[in-house]
Every structure is written in C-alpha cells, then in structure tokens.
C-alpha cells in the first residue's frame, strides 16, 4: 500500500505484480492516459509537476482511507511528472480484493481523491503553440482555463 511520484515512465506490469494474493479474487486497475483533446482544444503534450513530499503523503493517506472504507487486499498508486506525449500513462491505480464490488469502489475512490487532493499540476500544450495550467485562473499570462471540469480523463 504505497503511492509514488515518478519522473520516468510508469510500468503498469511491474505495479500490478504487487497486487496478487491467495485471498484476492478481483483486481481492478485504472490508467490515465494523455489524450489528444480537452474540452475542444487539440492537445499535443502535457507537463505534470508535483510537490513530491506532500503528494506522496497525501496519496498514501488516500490509499489508507480506501483500505478503511472498502474490504480490499492491496492498493497501489503512481503518478508521473515531467513532459508526456499523447498516449503516455500519467497515473496508475490498482486494487485487489476478495470481491469485485470493493475493488471497483476503492479504485474509483482513489483516483477521484487523487485528482482533487494531491498537489499535482498539469500544463497543457495546445496544437497552436499556446499552453495553460489546467483548472487555474491564470490572470494575465497564458490561456485561461478556469473550469473545474478540465480533467485528463
């Protein structure tokens, strides 16, 4: 049960190998991929920045909350930082449990909380050359992207 920030590509297979257990009958994984659009803007690439100590602490707290709320066996998460291209994996969450309901619910809880609470920021680079920080009212500089709905996935 740990949450990591990584500046190198996420390896879903390596992460998933931490989940098996003889008591586990269900495994649910979530991957967030960089997609080519966000709210109608064509996206070329993304840049993620994190404050690693607090991101790791908050991510680990979210995993512990999931283990308390849902009857799961194991849970892991990892978020990428740095520049990512279309199709790259930005975040991975994996949960194993005896039953599938708890595995689905916990996996969804974890990714929802990560997106709202963990200090990670996303700068989108648009096809036209502009760039903007998602969710931020950037005032004078950059593209204004002030919508709470702006999310990778």
């Amino acid at each position, binding site marked *: 049960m740990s949450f990591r920030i990584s500046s190198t590509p996420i390896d879903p297979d390596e992460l998933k190998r931490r989940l098996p257990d003889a008591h586990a009958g269900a495994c649910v994984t979530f991957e967030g991929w960089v997609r080519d659009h966000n709210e109608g803007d064509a996206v070329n690439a993304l840049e993620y920045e994190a404050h690693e100590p*607090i991101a790791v602490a908050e991510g680990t707290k979210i995993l512990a909350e999931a283990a308390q709320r849902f009857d799961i066996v194991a849970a892991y998460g990892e978020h990428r930082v740095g520049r990512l291209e279309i199709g790259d994996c930005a*975040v991975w969450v994996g949960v194993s449990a005896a039953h599938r309901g708890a595995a689905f619910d916990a996996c969804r809880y974890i990714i929802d909380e*990560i997106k709202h609470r963990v200090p990670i920021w996303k700068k989108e680079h648009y096809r036209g050359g502009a760039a903007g920080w998602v969710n*931020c*009212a*950037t005032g004078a500089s950059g593209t204004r992207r002030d919508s709470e709905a702006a999310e990778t996935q």
Partner: protein
Amino acid sequence: MASDAVIDVTARYFAAFREQAGTDAERVTTGAATAGDLYGELAERHGFADARGRCKVAINDELSDWTAPLKHGDVVLFFPPVAGG
C-alpha cells in the same frame, strides 16, 4: 502586540503561481498573522487570480489551512488548484 509583529518567511510557488510570480521562492517580510493573510498580500503583489478556496497551503511541508498562524522562519507553500490524473 503580537498582531503587529513583523516576521520573515519563505514563500514557495508552484505551477501557475511560480510562473506568475516569476520565481519559485522568495523571502518575504510581512505583518500577516495567518497563511491566508499572507496569500492575500502576495496575490495582490503577483496578480494571482485564483480564489483561496480553490487553492491549498502547506507550512513546512505539511498541508495546513488558511487560518494557520505564521511564525518567523516558516516556509509557506502556495498550491494553485490541483489537476492530477
């Protein structure tokens, strides 16, 4: 009086805040009593447009809240709205 005390703190900026401030950290001499007061002061100076309610603050690498009192030497981290995933 304590509320008039002037202290030195370090302000650290991330993501959009860093770009708007033009620096990732600065030494600030301030009369602000709380993290929220300090944000108000720095938002005005640097033109941060985000409401405090959408942002987060950490003091000395621990998530905190806007009503937290500041003391001399604190490192105060200002987080713009997060957007992981």
